[in-house]
């Protein structure tokens, strides 16, 4: 199967690396590879944590599950790219502002980071949107309703709303520090819905299975 749940974060790392390589030439980025490598590494390590997901359940709906998971992951990959670009943007901005340039020589220009943030947001959004729509359709076709009572679904919708506002801002001309801050916050919300909720109330998939069995 294309996306074995246990390897989800490993896949995410892979997607992130791929996106970076794709954009690297386009934006003439220098000195950004380090943070991406770190990200990919952390995600890879996360993938070794035990996961309670039921693979058999996913195997019942290979098309639905692969496309839903793949699109959502590319979405999260894009958002995490914009998050890391935003983080470095703020760090470097601080340095230039306080006239302590030091190591900032090794970082890409603020403008390049801003554009990376931009690309990350757009790639993320244009993949995340169909991803959650597909998820919704999948739920409808199997459960006959949307599982609103599940925290992850709610939070994902919230993240989507947040990002759509951010995209609207970018389109209307927001730039620089403001967008950098907002994309960091956005990614925080996304991470809560992606990882945090699992710890609090059991995994997304087990909710799905439970609802189906009821």
């Amino acid at each position, binding site marked *: 199967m294309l996306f074995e749940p246990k390897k989800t974060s490993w896949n995410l790392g892979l997607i992130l690396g791929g996106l970076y390589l794709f954009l690297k030439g386009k934006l003439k980025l220098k000195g950004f590879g380090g943070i991406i490598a770190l990200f990919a590494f952390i995600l890879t390590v996360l993938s070794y944590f035990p996961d309670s997901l039921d693979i058999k359940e996913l195997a019942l709906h290979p098309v639905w599950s692969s496309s839903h998971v793949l699109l959502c992951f590319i979405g999260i990959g894009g958002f995490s790219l914009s998050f890391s670009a935003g983080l470095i943007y703020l760090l470097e901005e601080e340095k230039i*502002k306080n*006239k302590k340039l030091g190591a900032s*020589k090794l970082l*890409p220009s*603020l403008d*390049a980071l801003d554009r990376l943030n931009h690309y990350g947001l757009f790639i993320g959004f244009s993949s995340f949107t169909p991803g959650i729509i597909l998820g919704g359709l999948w739920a409808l076709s199997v459960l006959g309703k949307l599982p609103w009572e599940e925290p992850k679904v709610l939070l994902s919708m919230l993240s989507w709303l947040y990002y759509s506002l951010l995209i609207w801002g970018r389109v209307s001309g927001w*730039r*620089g*520090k403001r967008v950098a801050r907002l994309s960091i916050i956005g990614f925080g919300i996304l991470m809560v819905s992606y990882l945090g909720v699992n710890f609090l109330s059991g995994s997304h998939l087990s909710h799905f299975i439970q609802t189906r069995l009821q």
Partner: protein
Amino acid sequence: MREIGLLGLNHKSAPLEIREKLAFVNLKELKKALSLLKRDRILKEVLILSTCNRVELYAVSSRISDILLFEVFEKLKGVSSEEISPFCYFKVGQEAVRHLFIVASSLDSMVIGEPQILGQLKEAYEVALEEGTVGFFLHRLFQRAFFVGKKVRRETGIGDGAISVSYVAVELARKIFGDLENKRIIIVGAGEMCELAARHFRSHGVKEIMVANRTWQRGVELASKIGGTPIPFEEIKERFKEADIILSSTGASRPLIFKEDVKKALKYRKGKPLFIIDLAVPRDVEPEVNELDGVFLYDIDDLKQVAQEHANNRLNEAERAKELVEEEVEKFMSWYRSLEIVPTIKDLREWAEALRKSEMERVLRGLSLDEREKQKVELLSKRLMNKFLHPLLVFLKGQTRDEDSVKEYSELIRCIFGLEDQ
């Protein structure tokens, strides 16, 4: 034995008045001097490096000395050795090689790490090559010097970071905006500083330059000089909304640009960064402007401080560069010393070859062999000779650590094999 020597003076050893006297002001003069020296045949090889900071004469001759090179200077420039000797340095052999490598690495430059010197050296080399005064020794030496210069630049940070105020400004702008091509810059003031900085920005691709000056006419003049557009002085604040870089250097005694003005413009900018450079003393821009989000204000002291940091970095890197140079000097000297052993090796080979030939003749006279057999015997003798000589030659070629051992072993071999002295 040929010997490399150099006589020269630079910005540290001599004041400008003396350097002027010895400088070769243009290509024509340099070529004339070299062709004159070629005709003279006093020096086997010669090369002249003349820049605004130094004049150096590199020469190869079997009887190199400072007197000889002072004579050359006297002939070329009509200055006596008494007049210039207090300001000159003479270096020979390893010292000369080291000096050249240090110069090529820009370690001896007024501004350490400046990139021009390597180009100037190459030019000097090419002129001498054209005039035919470069032989195999200087050729090898200078090729090596170019290599060392590039290596030092590549492997150390000696050329990193701008160290003049206006270049620091450009570098910072690039740090903020990346590509400067589509950026808009407003120059406030029309003085020399403004012009210089504007030219730097122009050469880094800035297309849209606006000039605002209190006296309209002078603003127009500067704008036409640098290919910008003049705008009325009163309009500056209105333009804050669209500018990317503001560079101000006026003679005003009080600030012209206030936090309030910039703050108003920020609403329209939607977070797009604004870089303000204040080169004026007293300052044109209220320092509090830097507190605003997305605005970077640098005054002349800030820029100087960055430049100073870079200069300090370069000094640190210079230490590493010197180590690199030292390694390269050692490599070159090892090659240089190996040259001294070459005549001995040549004599040894000739001696053996002569011996082989005479023995061959004697043997062949007493035998009646056909052509094929003769060739076989010939081959046998050659192989034997080479095999006997081989360890000896390898040993000799390995003795290039220092000059003494080169001489010592070379004499020993001559003594053993009864070779005539050079």
